[in-house]
């Protein structure tokens, strides 16, 4: 089926946002944003992390109430009517469906149950599933979103959950579908599949808002692009009329110097995993026969779709999880069953995947967070008591050296922005001059500026001779920083290849768990 020409597909305006402004305290997340969406159109909402895309969509969906501005949505008859603010129920009723970046699915319920949740009267004496099932199978057939709807969502993979999310919106007769960073967790092939579904649905009259910061996919799938920067709309133009460089410049608004990897000289073997297995309860907590080696002064990138064992591997190398078999050696020392404290003492720096949960104690001050790993050091303790003067000095020096911008060393760490929180963690970890650095998703959720800072810090650590394991879902990042790249899939790790020799398509197939097909 040839794609329908945009001119035939795109109809009248179905959604109009006027003058949307939203403040959080002194911070302006959205500044007088106007936006329109037409029937059958794919509008890409492009912007860095923190540009205000998600806030805008949360206002559209009623999670937040805007301080000013209005939203108008077309009803079934096509006439625009104002949408009541602050009510997800009203947004749903108006035909707006949202697929969140972090899926809003209850893991203990099946896909089917998640889809019908809230669609029947809560006072009905019994759930009526028959008609719902019939409608759903028709929807599945029409959209091509096949997925097992009768297992608990907790047992589904990320791509499958996304399909449940889209079905959920379609089941609610969504005429406008918002996809928030839908490809962040997908393999390149899965992302292609998603775009095929999007094209099919828009041909059917669905309108789509695609939130993204990836220029390539915006160019590939959208009809029009709106660019947000620092809370304001800075451009709105047909996709056909813009090129990538222009979009990048609009999005960032300043010259970006990406971190550059120089040729390295790997030293001696620092970290070695030999046939390590972890018996976990499910796929995301299981490792099977993992072997890998990292040398001093080398960055090993580990690519993979989230939920394939990255978390447990990072936990293993932080001492939080013990393997059921196999050996872990650090610079020749067997550290297989060491505690987190011993890992720290042996010079392993760890940047956790979830910085709010594992990285900082939000209620404690920046200074206290900086010495969290140094409580045994005589620099900071004397007779079991803390040396407060020394802690203050350390805080002042570290915050300056790592450019941590925040309300001051004595304020609680939870007040820091994501980028500054990550800088604080890096300050704590890198000031100890680690021999091995485990960086799990180190730039997740950071804007381009902070991402660049983190990249430079990782490269500096490599230059100083640290072995670095970089676990990431961002392929651009992996290609830019890694000396070698391996893939983790379903708890198994493929042999690492030199970055220059890695081909994107094969990498994607490995991430999806498909071995290359031999030609018949």
């Amino acid at each position, binding site marked *: 089926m040839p794609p329908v020409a945009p001119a035939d597909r795109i109809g009248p305006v179905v959604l109009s946002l006027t003058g949307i402004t939203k403040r959080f*305290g002194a911070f302006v997340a959205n500044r007088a944003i106007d936006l329109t969406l037409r029937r059958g159109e794919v509008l890409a909402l492009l912007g860095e992390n923190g540009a205000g895309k998600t806030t805008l969509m949360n206002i559209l969906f009623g999670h937040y*109430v805007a301080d*000013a501005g*209005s939203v108008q949505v077309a009803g079934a008859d096509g006439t625009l009517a104002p949408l009541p*603010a602050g009510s997800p129920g009203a947004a749903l009723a108006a035909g707006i469906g949202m697929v969140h970046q972090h899926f809003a699915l209850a893991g203990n319920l099946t896909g089917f149950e998640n889809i019908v949740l809230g669609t029947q009267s809560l006072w009905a004496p019994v759930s009526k599933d028959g008609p719902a099932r019939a409608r759903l199978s028709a929807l599945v057939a029409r959209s091509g979103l096949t997925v097992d709807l009768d297992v608990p969502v907790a047992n589904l993979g990320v791509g499958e959950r996304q399909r449940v999310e889209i079905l959920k919106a379609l089941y609610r007769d969504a005429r406008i579908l918002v996809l928030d960073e839908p490809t962040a967790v997908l393999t390149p092939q899965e992302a292609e599949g998603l775009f095929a579904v999007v094209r099919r649905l828009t041909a059917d009259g669905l309108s789509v808002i695609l939130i993204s910061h990836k220029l390539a996919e915006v160019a590939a799938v959208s009809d029009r692009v709106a660019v947000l920067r620092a809370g304001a709309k800075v451009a709105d133009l047909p996709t056909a009329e813009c090129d990538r460089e222009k979009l990048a410049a609009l999005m960032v608004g300043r010259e970006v110097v990406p971190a550059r990897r120089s040729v390295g000289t790997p030293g001696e073997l620092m970290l070695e995993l030999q046939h390590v297995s972890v018996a976990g309860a499910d796929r995301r907590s299981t490792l099977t026969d993992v072997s890998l080696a990292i040398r001093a002064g080398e960055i090993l990138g580990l690519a993979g779709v989230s939920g394939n064992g990255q978390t447990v591997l990072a936990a293993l190398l*932080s*001492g*939080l999880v013990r393997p059921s078999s196999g050996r872990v050696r650090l610079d020749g020392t067997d550290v297989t069953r060491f*505690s*987190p*404290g*011993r*890992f*720290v*003492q042996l010079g392993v720096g*760890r940047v*956790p995947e979830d910085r709010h*949960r*594992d*990285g*900082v*104690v*939000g*209620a*404690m001050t920046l200074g*206290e967070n900086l010495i*969290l*790993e140094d*409580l045994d050091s005589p620099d900071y*303790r004397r007779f*079991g*008591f*803390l040396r*407060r003067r020394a802690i203050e000095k350390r805080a002042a020096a570290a915050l300056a050296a790592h450019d941590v911008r925040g*309300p001051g060393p004595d*304020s*609680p760490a939870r*007040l820091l922005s994501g980028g500054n929180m990550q800088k604080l963690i890096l300050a704590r970890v890198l000031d100890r001059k680690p021999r091995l650095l485990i960086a799990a998703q180190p730039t997740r959720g950071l804007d381009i500026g902070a991402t660049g800072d983190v990249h430079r810090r990782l490269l500096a650590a490599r230059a100083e001779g640290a072995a670095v394991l970089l676990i990431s879902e961002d392929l651009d990042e992996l290609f830019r920083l890694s000396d070698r790249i391996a893939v983790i899939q379903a708890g198994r790790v493929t042999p690492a290849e030199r970055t220059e020799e890695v081909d994107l398509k094969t990498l994607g197939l490995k991430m999806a768990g498909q071995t290359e097909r031999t030609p018949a």
Partner: protein
Amino acid sequence: MIGLRLEPRPTPAPGLALAARIGAGIAALVLAAIPIALAGAPVGKAFALMAEGAFGSLFATSETLARATPLILTGLAAAVAFRAKLWNIGGEGQLYAGALAAVAVGSGLLDLPGPALIPIVMAAGMIAGAVLMLVPTLLKTRFGADEVVTTLLLNFVVLLVVQMMLEGPLKDPYGMGWPQSAPILDQAVLPKLMPRMRVHTGLVIALVVAVGIALVMARSVFGFQVRAVGENASAARFAGIGVTATFIKVGLLSGALAGLAGVSEVAGLKGYLTSDLSPGFGYSGIVVAMLAGLNPLGVVVAAIFVAAVFVGADSMSRGVGISSYIADLIVATSLLCVLVGGLVTTYRIRFTRPDPARS
């Protein structure tokens, strides 16, 4: 429609925190006027009697301070454990365990001079309380069993053990058949602070302990670890702090403090052990800790407040003829009030009005 919204404050307001706590105590007293009035008693007179009963004379003040002594210790027990988010609700049981150990050691088993015996009796009580708290702590760290439930249930078990001991091995042979222990030896009795007043050296001990705990929690590495574990156990574990070890240490400390409260009651006030030694000091200690915002020095003030409510309520009860359970009612209400009051310090309460331009 006017809505109500909570917005987190960027930085907590310290002045407000104190005001909110005092306000909560006042609010609880004001709310108590409702049941007093409904019971048909004159509210003004009732409160006047209450104040007089608690602080109206030297004797009244002594009674209040004597009552505050165990509350300071059980309040500290709850405060240190809650800092680590170890929910020790077993202060009542640990208090009895401490008292039991005190009479087991101090009522004739060891006949030593006072300066030697008193520390031994205190140590015995603290060890008993600590060991008792070790059980739920280990059940939590080893098996993941919720310590709230286990500490609560152990309270009932300990009380039965006490009754069993008082009817068996520890029964006073000269007690005329009453289930009570033999009296603490004279030289092990904590001296009174003033003649003819019941307030005793236990108060001094409690105050010293409160200052010591305040220092440890604010300045020591251990205190730092306790706070880190309580605020974010997974980040603490990630950074190499021994979370299990911290729980065990703080559990032992908490149990020991509650055990010391039992020693203080037996050796300072009652002289012997009965199974109605504590009118719920362990549970009131939780209220004390929360009123104090888990601050060890605040615990002292909160304990005196709660003690005054109890002592004053007795006078009020006699004077206007309402049940002395009014004290329990006030204490429970003040706990809920202080929780709500705490919101003021961490959130800004905003009333939202619909935007006329938008509707």
